[in-house]
């Protein structure tokens, strides 16, 4: 188990007693990690609940962050509630996705920061929804047609859960059927806003895949998954969906992180399910590296490719991920003028070589 991840998770989940024994150096290290993970607000709350005395400078910094996150999240959800009510009068429907849909799992809105509010939309309704949001003052971020912002709030519109619209070959690596996700939707009250959200099992799977896509960079996603499993997520339904969607590996990786890195216990059913997932050559090694390199690693897509049995499709997945289509490259290089788009592939190659050599240097340094 990683000591750092374990301590962060224990504190995040309310076991803050060991903070009383922290030295000043320990507090400094914890503060750095909490800041990197975006957990200052949650830690502030847990320390207040446990009566753990924070160093004065940390108290002010974490309190400010807690209050900022609480304000932004609460205001965002009220705005979303108003927008959704307006959408309903026009016959438009959206599903709230993680992270906003996961806020009720946390003690209060100051505990889980969000960059934006993700909404699942039916493909046929996207034009009308964009027009609706534009009439309410939202504007698309340049080069990101589905990311709309207004008054400091961002809405990210999704038509599928794995962003296959960006990288089509992702369909080979598992697929969450949007229509089935719509069928399994449930009503949710999030900070007083009455909304419709994804089902718990769909959110658990989505969170696991999301963590993998982003190379396990944030501890928050693992906390989300743990809280979902504790909140009444039906294990049998989750396992059945993982199998039907061919996403056992991504789910399995996140469960292993919870067990091996965060030191959290899995249910016996989850453990026996985990033991049955076959592993490919090199997968175990890569997973260990991915967990170890979590905060700056890039192993997520490589690991995800292990989920594709056919070699040809796996190659296509990696090729499209490494060199995506032009409109995606324009998002990767936001300052590159459109007429210079052909240069983007060269820039991408340089970017990948730099990242790759950093990863390899890290591997050699440790072996």
């Amino acid at each position, binding site marked *: 188990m990683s000591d750092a991840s374990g301590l962060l998770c224990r504190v995040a989940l309310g076991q803050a007693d060991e903070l009383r024994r922290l030295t000043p150096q320990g507090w400094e290290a914890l503060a750095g990690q909490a800041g990197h993970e975006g957990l200052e607000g949650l830690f502030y709350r847990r320390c207040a609940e446990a009566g753990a005395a924070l160093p004065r400078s940390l108290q002010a910094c974490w309190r400010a962050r807690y209050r900022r996150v609480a*304000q932004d999240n*609460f205001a965002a959800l*009220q705005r979303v509630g108003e927008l959704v009510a307006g959408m309903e009068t026009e016959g438009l429907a959206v599903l709230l996705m993680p992270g906003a849909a996961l806020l009720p799992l946390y003690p*209060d809105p100051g505990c889980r920061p969000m960059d934006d509010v993700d909404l699942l939309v039916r493909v046929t309704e996207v034009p009308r929804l964009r027009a609706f949001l534009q009439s309410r003052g939202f504007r698309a971020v340049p080069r990101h047609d589905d990311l709309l912002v207004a*008054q400091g709030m961002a809405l990210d519109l999704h038509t599928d859960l794995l962003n296959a619209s960006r990288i089509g070959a992702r369909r080979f690596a598992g697929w969450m059927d949007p229509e089935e996700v719509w069928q399994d939707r449930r009503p949710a009250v999030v900070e*007083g806003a009455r909304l419709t959200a994804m089902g718990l099992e769909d959110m658990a799977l989505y969170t696991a895949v999301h963590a993998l896509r982003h190379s396990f960079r944030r501890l928050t996603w693992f906390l989300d998954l743990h809280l979902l499993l504790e909140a009444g997520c039906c294990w049998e339904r989750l396992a059945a969906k993982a199998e039907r969607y061919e996403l056992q590996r991504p789910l399995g990786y996140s469960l292993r992180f919870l067990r091996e890195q965060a030191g959290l216990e899995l249910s016996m059913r989850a453990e026996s399910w985990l033991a049955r997932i076959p592993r490919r050559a090199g997968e175990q090694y890569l997973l260990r590296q991915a967990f170890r390199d979590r905060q700056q690693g890039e192993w997520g897509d490589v690991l995800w490719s292990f989920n594709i049995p056919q070699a040809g499709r796996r190659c296509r997945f990696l090729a499209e991920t490494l060199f995506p289509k032009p409109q995606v490259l324009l998002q990767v290089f936001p300052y590159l003028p459109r007429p210079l788009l052909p240069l983007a592939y060269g820039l991408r190659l340089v970017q990948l070589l730099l990242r790759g050599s950093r990863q390899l240097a890290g591997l050699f340094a440790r072996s």
Partner: protein
Amino acid sequence: MESAAQEKSWGVRAELLYRKLVDGGMLYDSASGQVHHFNATAALVWEACQEGRRTSEMVAELRRRYEVEPTQADADVRQILREFARAGLLAP
């Protein structure tokens, strides 16, 4: 000082949304988008206003919770109520 029978019961504007936090609370005005942050004492007074309590009841609760001297508690509660009124948060 008012007698108990004359003492006003406080109320809050219905359209304001209040959220309790670990160290106090915050108030969201959807019309203006403004957010007011309360420390623990201000949150206690606000929650009492929501329940239609009187000043003397708020003072008693503040004294009970934080072991504050009576004159200090009274001054604190009245100051907070004045600030609420100045910010237009209270019901007419």
